[in-house]
């Protein structure tokens, strides 16, 4: 059995999110949804009134780890740092922290988004691009 983590349709559907961090922002309660949702309950009552907006491209590191036993597509890059970053109140992403000295990692570190190659399906499959963060 072969294991493919990205297929063309699944990958391309979320290009606006992967490449441009387009999220849903509710004009009533200010809540962010990343990715945008079809249905969401608004804190101000009823359904959220969503407009599509890009998330801010910088934020703060809330937690992190250094992965030594990754999934097969990431084997060549181990060990690497990955963390949860808050880009806007309530808008958080899980992303690798690239080009960083592990000793410099700390909760509260300021980071910004950088466009990177995330993974690829072998040497002949689709290239999967997306977001990582770097220390600022």
């Amino acid at each position, binding site marked *: 059995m072969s294991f493919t983590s990205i297929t063309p349709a699944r990958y391309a559907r979320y*290009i*606006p999110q992967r*490449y*441009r961090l387009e999220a849903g922002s509710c004009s009533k309660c200010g809540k962010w949804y990343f990715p945008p949702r079809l249905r969401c309950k608004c804190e101000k009552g009823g359904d959220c009134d969503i407009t599509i907006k890009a998330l801010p491209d910088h934020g703060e590191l809330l937690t992190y780890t250094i992965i030594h036993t990754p999934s097969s597509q990431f084997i*060549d*890059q181990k060990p690497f740092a990955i963390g949860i970053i808050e880009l806007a109140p309530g808008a958080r992403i899980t992303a*690798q922290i*690239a*080009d960083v000295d592990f000793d410099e990692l700390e909760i509260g570190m300021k980071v910004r988004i*950088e*466009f*990177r*190659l*995330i993974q690829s399906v*072998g*040497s002949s499959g689709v*290239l999967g*691009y997306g977001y*990582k963060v770097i220390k600022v």
Partner: protein
Amino acid sequence: MTEVGIVGYGAHLPKRRIKVEEIAKVWGADAEGYKKGLMIEEKSVPGPDEDTITLSVEAAKRAIKRAGINPVEIGSVYIGSESHPYAVKPSGTVVAEAIGATPECHCADFEFACKAGSEAMFVTYSQVMAGTVKYGLAIGADTSQGAPGDALEISASAGAAAYIMGAENLVAEITHTYSFMHDTPDFWRREHENYPQHAARYTGEPAYFRHVVGCGERLLETSGEKPENIQWFVAHQPNGKFPLRAGKMLGFPREKIEQGWLINLLGNTYSGSSPLGLTAVLDVAKPGDRIMMVSYGSGAGSDGFLLTVKDRITEVQNITEQTRPMLETGRIYLDYGTYVKFRGKIIRNH
């Protein structure tokens, strides 16, 4: 005639580097000899998560910032490279999506060895001149490979330079262009080969100098411009010596070449080479300065540009990353083993 030229420019370099000594020692080569002969000390190395596309996206974002435009107004995206990640599927579509220029956008990838980037610049400039696009994005970017143990391994490096061309709010007007080529087998790569081949000393006079100097001379002739009136000279940098010599032959002293001469710390970024040199010049140029850029692509040919820097440049130079600071700070040095791992030169099972 409408003034057409650069509205915004941007550069991006990977953070990793490898020193010449580190490569030379593995192959039993004379590091000092290489450093003296090529005038290179170290070169940039893309990480396993960096390629022509990712470098282009970051450079393009900086160009858009300096241009101060809404990316949706970009009518064309052309990327020139020798290391497009896909052989079939343009780098441009990913970049166009990443910057938000789709769906109304022309796009194609360019290829002409190291002058693919300057060709992208020329075509974009021409489209704006013709009025078919309002703003166009032209990028020269590469993550080129040199065969292990070959002299090209010492110099082949990675970087991207991006230009938004337009007809208003220019930071630099392109006043003259000239393109000069002959079919010249100095450097090539056949389909399915991993690494390019080069014709050693034939790559010098009959190839690089014939075209860079030939193009430069004709550009000066057709424009009626004199080197004394040109403040900055940027040429393609396959090694440190060639652009200095070509510049001298055209009448430019070293001081006019230094700012755009990045090779000693960057290596040869192929399609990014002269375009990156130009970004370094634009970072410090003053309104009214004249700049001459001559690219070179093996195969072979050169594209020459004469530019006049406009007042608006002082508003944008400092608003995002500049090229020399990126070149000189925040560097992460690799050993040869990590370098070949990152560059995929180790034989694996698939």
